[in-house]
């Protein structure tokens, strides 16, 4: 490794002064303003930025897939010495797949759901004349084996929805590398995957890199980037603000934006501290750096507001059934935040539904504010309904797209049983103020709001009936890092002001660490460990918790081969 972090190897991709704009004439907007990149064989360059930074469109352009209505200009755009600035579609098609591969996120929609896995892989082979018709199926199976998909012959004949998330992503990678491209562009390849699976995918990509492929990794997740990248390029508003070797950039960023990005990441490795808001963003009523260490050591003293005892839930399925929950017990006290940490399939969403009373448990009971909650008809629960509310991951689909913000929040006021007949607007304005939004947003529709604003409206709506318990199901997972930070601050602020207890469900360790007082770790329908957040994160007791924490990407470590880490059987 050279001093500047670059690896030896030919420069496969050279880009100078890349400009991309959309639209014609008066409506022409430039989204990428002069980006320079160099990519070498055997090296991983990560392009990092938030949504709107232009990283995705840059990545696509490097495969010639910018999209209709786009104008691409560059002083230089070479692939392996061949000038691609004026290349036609046919040229690009020859190169795509055979020389440059593209891996997208979320294989469930990135693979044709109506076609078998094997067929998708074979398509790549067929396009570039690799192998004959007869041996392509065999090659496809080989490729699946190469990316460590178990039982590849069987899997090749299956459809994407029949594979687990991790297997799908591997299959997607297999189809991208099928024709042996020397450059691989991976656009958010691990988003939507669990932590442990993410680890495996990153190992896979690292292996490709080590084998000589040039890897362009596009991501917003600094932790992922830190694990895999040799060099990092930070993009903001269509410009490249900083480039450099990974270690140096992460340890000592020079550009203020880079610094801001790094700070905004809630880390699972540092104890909680509140976030410095970005300059120019609307500030939540700051409480800058209140130390909550005593609470985070688990000494909440309020009354029990929510109690879950021995809850079990079974879903019928061919071949027996699935125990989504079994023997789950936990308590939530007034004013405290209980984080529920789990990967997909751990049962955390089912737990949320049971706690909210949207699903009846097969065993056990839930009580809210000391009164029985589960096992009653909805009608008898109506009075209590307003005391427990939900904030979901994707507010866009939980809002009626035709309604204004005012109406959305007002609906919650009407449903809460505490109607202020004429005076809705003052109350709504107050609620919006609580989450840091101004009254000018009252008449906007959900589509006119940014992601962060939408989530705040969702919180305001949830707070309208003055609940005692707030159930938050992955509320910040779909948000950009800095926006995420702001919204977490809103939660913080709300809790301070209203003393509301929160059940905070997430798969993101950093987020959970940041907001929770106590944490419950779930796996396969059971709670494997509970305790004050600091204790669990620093001295985990259960092996699974330990595994989760181990899987966190560490900046600066070189990944070892996946073979060294054997994962328990069914996780993939």
């Amino acid at each position, binding site marked *: 490794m050279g001093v500047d972090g670059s690896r030896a190897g030919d420069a496969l991709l050279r880009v100078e002064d890349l400009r991309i704009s959309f639209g014609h004439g008066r409506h022409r907007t430039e989204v990428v303003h002069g980006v320079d990149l160099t990519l070498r064989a055997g090296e991983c360059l990560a392009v990092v930025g938030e949504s709107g930074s232009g990283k995705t469109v840059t990545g696509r352009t490097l495969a010639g897939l910018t999209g209709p209505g786009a104008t691409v200009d560059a002083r230089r755009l070479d692939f392996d010495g061949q000038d691609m600035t004026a290349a036609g579609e046919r040229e690009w098609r020859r190169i795509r797949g055979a020389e440059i591969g593209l891996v997208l996120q979320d294989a469930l929609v990135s693979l044709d759901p109506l076609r078998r896995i094997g067929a998708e892989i*074979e398509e790549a082979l067929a*396009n*570039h004349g690799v192998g004959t018709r007869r041996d392509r199926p065999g090659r496809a199976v080989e490729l699946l084996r190469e990316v460590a998909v178990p039982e590849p012959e069987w899997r090749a004949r299956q459809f994407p929805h029949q594979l687990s998330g991790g297997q799908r992503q591997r299959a997607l990678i297999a189809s991208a590398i099928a024709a042996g491209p020397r450059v691989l562009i991976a656009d958010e390849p691990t988003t939507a995957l669990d932590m442990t699976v993410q680890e495996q995918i990153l190992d896979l990509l690292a292996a490709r890199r080590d084998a000589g492929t040039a890897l362009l990794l596009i991501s917003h997740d600094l932790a992922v980037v830190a694990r895999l990248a040799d060099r990092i390029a930070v993009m903001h508003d269509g410009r490249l603000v900083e480039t450099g070797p990974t270690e140096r950039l992460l340890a000592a960023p020079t550009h203020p934006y880079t610094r801001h990005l790094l700070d905004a990441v809630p880390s699972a490795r540092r104890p909680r501290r509140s976030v410095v808001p970005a300059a120019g963003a609307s500030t939540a009523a700051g409480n800058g750096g209140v130390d909550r260490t005593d609470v985070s050591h688990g000494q909440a003293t309020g009354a029990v507001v929510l109690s879950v005892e021995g809850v079990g839930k079974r879903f019928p399925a061919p071949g027996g059934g699935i125990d989504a929950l079994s023997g789950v017990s936990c308590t939530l006290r007034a004013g405290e935040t209980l984080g529920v940490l789990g990967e997909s399939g751990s049962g955390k969403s089912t737990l949320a539904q049971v706690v909210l009373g949207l699903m009846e448990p097969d065993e056990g009971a839930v009580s809210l504010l000391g009164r029985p909650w589960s096992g009653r008809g909805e009608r008898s629960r109506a009075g209590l309904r307003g005391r427990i509310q939900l904030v979901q991951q994707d507010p866009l689909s939980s809002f009626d797209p035709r309604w204004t913000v005012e109406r959305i929040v007002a609906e919650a006021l009407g449903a809460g049983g505490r109607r202020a007949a004429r005076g809705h607007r003052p109350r709504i304005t107050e609620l919006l103020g609580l989450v840091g939004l101004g009254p000018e947003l009252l008449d906007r529709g959900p589509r006119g709001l940014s992601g962060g604003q939408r989530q705040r409206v969702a919180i305001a709506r949830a707070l309208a009936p003055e609940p005692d318990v707030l159930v938050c199901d992955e509320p910040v997972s779909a948000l950009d890092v800095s926006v995420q930070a702001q919204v977490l601050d809103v939660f913080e602020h709300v809790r301070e002001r209203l003393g509301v207890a929160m059940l905070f469900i997430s798969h993101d360790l950093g987020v959970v660490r940041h907001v929770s007082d106590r944490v419950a770790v779930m796996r396969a329908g059971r709670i494997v460990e509970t305790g004050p957040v600091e204790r669990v994160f620093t001295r985990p007791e259960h092996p699974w918790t330990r595994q989760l924490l181990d899987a966190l990407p560490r900046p600066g470590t070189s990944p070892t081969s996946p073979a060294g880490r054997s994962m328990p059987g069914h996780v993939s």
Partner: protein
Amino acid sequence: MSPRRHRTVIRRALLSAIALACVATGCGTGPGGGDGRDGRIVYAVDTQPDCLDPQISPYDVTAALGRNIFDSLVAMDADGRIGPWLATSWQISRDGRTYTFRLREGVRFHDGTALDAAAVKATLDHTVAPQTKSQYAAGLISMYTGATAVDARTVRVALSRPYAPLLQVLSTATFGIQSPTALRANRGRTCLKPVGSGPFVFAGWARNRRIELDRNPNYAWAPAGVDHQGPAWAAGLTVEFIPEAASRFGALSSGQVDVASAVPPSHTGRLRHADGFRLLRADQPGAPYTLLLNVNRAPLDDVRVRRALQRSVRLDALVKALYSGAYDRAWSTLTPATTGYAATTEGSWPYDPDEAARLLDEAGWTGRDEDGYRTKGGTRLTLHWPYMTSLMRDQRALLGQGIQAEAKRAGIDVRFTALEPGAYLEKALGRDADILAFSWNRAEPDIMRSYFDSGQTGDKGGSNAFGISDPRLDDWLREASATRDPARRAVLYAQAQSRVNQQVLALPVYAPATLVGAADRVRGVTFDVQAYPLFHDARLED
């Protein structure tokens, strides 16, 4: 570097569907209408018969086609005179209740059976037998009590009362003589297997497509008035069903058929002037298209109102406008082609709107409402005229609207409404209407009795829709039906027609005619007395 062929389920299914369709339809047969020529005449008709047994079916088309398959006992010529056919001679008893027929020798049915007295008896008995369920023929010989085969060539027919029209009735295709063997063997299925003795043999019926008739090579007993006695010239007759008028006409003009029936009146001009085609026309006997008026209910119970209606419609102009001269305006409840038609009825009343207005005023319809219709005591002068769309050929619906418009100018509100069959019949049989209109094809003035005899109401199987009960008409029409003296009949019917017009019991509109288009290469198509096309003399010239 071509993409590999990917066989999706969909594509496979698609290809199979096409292949299946191709195989099933036998791709590759060439265009062209019916079967090859070799002397067959292709004749397109607009309606398909429901049943080919003429004694069962009430429809014109059955009789029309049956005329080529069956022969009758006697034949009627254009002047209304009865001549011999299958019967060479006959005697009528003095009381008019017994008819003795002497049959021709050597006649054989299509299945080889010989014609004898028993065969005639079989057909007549078949007509009135309850299990036959005759819908029309049985009503025509309701006075038939039985027949006896005196010997092989003599048959005696007995009636319960004298009936002058009997010979005319027996001359129609409705009473074509069927093979007794076939009647016995096909009991219950005679509709599908008609066996007669006529110039054409029934060879097949592809339902909704065509009927094939082959030449009867043994035919030798055509009635007088036909060009030649022997078998038909044409090797066969293919009757194609083309219900759509434009399609039918197009098939004729493009040469896919040789003869086409029911030419729309608006197309007659084109045919007359086209090269290679000609229009054949035959006036229909019987009752013209007539509006029957409900004289037993207000407002038409007042003869002044009826007369006013009669005089306020410009029928000449209407008929000419709608039918471009193909049909003539009618003046009597018998068409000019019917024996006994009284030409004196022509022009017997004028179009006189002033007279109409005066009559209506006199009748008390002096008020006017805001739409301009006359009122009496607050009630509008409304006439209800229901009709069935399925019976509206010849653009009769338009005609009705024309009459409606004319009546409006006189202040009469004619409600001309379409009803579906059930509702229509309910109204008709319940006499819950003011006007009902229809025509009737019959070569016998006795049709008037069916329309106006007080005993011939709908529930008894007659056409006296509104229960008209005029004693003088009853007497005249009954006497005319009993006497066989043609001169006396003429007088009686003339009186009847005159009275009907004078009392305005009905309003005749137009006399239908059979309009047939033929390509010039077809010669010898003639018409029988009921204006049905005959093909015995027809032949194709190349």
